[in-house]
């Protein structure tokens, strides 16, 4: 629906560019993830549900993160502030209240905090730890990230997580929220469907096989393949496929979308399993 949704998408992209600018000195360690990254890959996907997000999600590869400038100082200098309501580490907001999340993959998040990524000298409140982002620091590609507003000519080069890594991250997000259904967002499942429809099965499978045997991303990718089976490939009645159906209600064809997400997931798992030996075995 044009109007508010489009406007929010434009503003979210503008804030993403502001955040990338603020962290320009750390460019090599910052990877765009989440819905905006998915839309950068999927373009005009033949699905009924419009692109929509207000969030900018950034993964931080702290393995080579410079000490200077400090993340919190750089963000604050650009006008960002930590969301005082959620109190979550890494939950930044633009001056006009658009969220930007800075997250560090759990496997490299350091320390023993429950929520904060511990990477001195950076403030422990500046970045949050999150499971499932490990694949994004392995599978990413430099892309042009253009503004979506005709009044804004900016276009920045940034690392953007690849489709396989984005799939792994979204699967972890849905699986993590399974136990608290009110936090489940149907749109997250629909973003997975968008990836599955747009990106070729072989292309996804090739990268997933590489991720499965990766020291850093192997475990979360293995787990994600199990989630893909349970949430989608088990059939159109599986939780994820049903979330896709709900997202299509009123605008698309729920049953076709649910079945398609299930079929494409099953195809992908088959393609991953028949890769040559030497790769890790997928759970199930």
């Amino acid at each position: 629906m044009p109007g508010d949704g489009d406007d929010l998408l434009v503003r979210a992209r503008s804030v993403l560019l502001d955040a990338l600018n603020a962290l320009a000195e750390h460019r090599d360690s910052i990877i765009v993830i989440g819905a905006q990254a998915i839309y950068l890959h999927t373009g005009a996907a033949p699905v009924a549900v419009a692109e929509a997000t207000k969030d900018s999600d950034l993964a931080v590869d702290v393995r080579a993160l410079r000490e200077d400038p400090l993340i919190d100082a750089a963000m604050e200098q650009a006008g960002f502030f930590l969301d005082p309501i959620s109190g979550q580490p890494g939950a930044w907001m633009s001056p006009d209240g658009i969220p930007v999340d800075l997250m560090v993959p759990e496997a490299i998040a350091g320390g023993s905090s429950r929520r904060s990524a511990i990477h001195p000298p950076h403030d422990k409140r500046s970045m949050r730890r999150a499971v499932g982002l490990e694949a994004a620091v392995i599978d990413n590609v430099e892309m042009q990230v253009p503004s979506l507003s005709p009044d804004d000519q900016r276009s920045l080069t940034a690392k953007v997580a690849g489709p396989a890594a984005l799939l792994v991250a979204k699967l972890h997000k849905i699986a993590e929220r399974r136990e608290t259904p009110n936090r489940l967002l149907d749109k997250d499942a629909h973003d997975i469907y968008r990836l599955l429809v747009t990106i070729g099965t072989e292309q996804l499978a090739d990268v997933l096989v590489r991720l499965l045997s990766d020291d850093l991303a192997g475990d979360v990718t293995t787990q994600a393949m199990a989630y893909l089976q349970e949430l989608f490939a088990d059939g159109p009645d599986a939780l994820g496929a049903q979330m896709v159906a709900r997202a299509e209600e009123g605008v698309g064809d729920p049953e076709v979308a649910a079945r398609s997400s299930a079929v494409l997931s099953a195809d992908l798992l088959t393609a991953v399993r028949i890769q040559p030996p030497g790769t890790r075995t997928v759970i199930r």
Partner: protein
Amino acid sequence: MGAPPAPLVRELDVLTVALMQIRRRLPEGWRLDLSEVPVDRRRPDAVLSLVPPTGSAVTFIVEVKRSMVRRDLPAVLEQLEGQIAAISPAHRGAAGPLPFVVSRYLAEPLREWLAERGVAYADATGNLRLALNRPALFLRDVGATKDPWRGPGRPKGNLTGEPVARVVRALVDFAPPYSVPRLVDLAGASTGPTYRVVDFLNEQSLLTRPERGAIEQVRWRELLQRWSQDYGFLRTNAVTGWLAPRGLPTVTKALTDLSAAQPSRYAVTGSLAAQTWAPYAPARAAMIYSDDPPWLADRLDLRPVDSGANVLLAAPAYDVVYDRASAPNGVQVVAPSQAAVDLMTGPGRNPAEGEALLDWMEANIDAWRR
């Protein structure tokens, strides 16, 4: 039964014949007259006065309907009772007024229903029942046991079968005038069936053809609409449902990639075909004719599904569906006339798309009619 019964289209004709049936069976000295009774508000269809040889007359308030089904009866009776209640006591007579139901034909369940309630009835075939205590009179007779106005009495013929499909498609696709032999050539049909179809369409006023002359005019839109009553995309052809998991654009792309020298014919119809001429709304499902649906499904990476299909593959009942197909964008597409009749008889919002396509065809006749 011999000659078809008189049509009895008007209610007055129905009533006249039914009264005649009753009068024929009345005992000597009785009369049955149409009469006038002042009515306050709701005027009944008729008021009858049954006059015995001696004593007072009985008044009936009559409801006449050309045809009636069982579920109509409670409302009919309620209406009659309302009309009776509205008549002033001064005009009610000795024992009445009483309700009376008249129709062209009353099937047995309706007669039973009325008899159980003591309601007088009569139909134009001679079914009638009239039971009175004062004056004492019991009349009952059985006429037809089947509705003579149904079935064989209706216009003969329909528009099913391959010759019909060939002739109708040609009549729509080619602008007249042309002779019937020329139509035989254009349609690729046999001579006998073509004449029969033309005669039938002439009787239905769907085309104009003077006695033994050339076809001068075809009401092609009405002809397609009439054909769609006897033809159905889903019921005439062998249709199977499939899922294209990456959506319809991949289907179109894969069709483009099929070379012209494929061993098996196909042609896109329905919404996807209509979009070639008259964009309506994004197509939700593809409808594709194919001589070999499993082969085509394999080439298009389709999965068989019982429900949630977005591709319907149809093995055509008649290969006329491929006639005058074209490939405007590298994809074989049926002619507009075929797409229109398939949409009119297709699932979901297809019928509305069919009307939109007919509108486009009307506005752009030179773009498609030869």
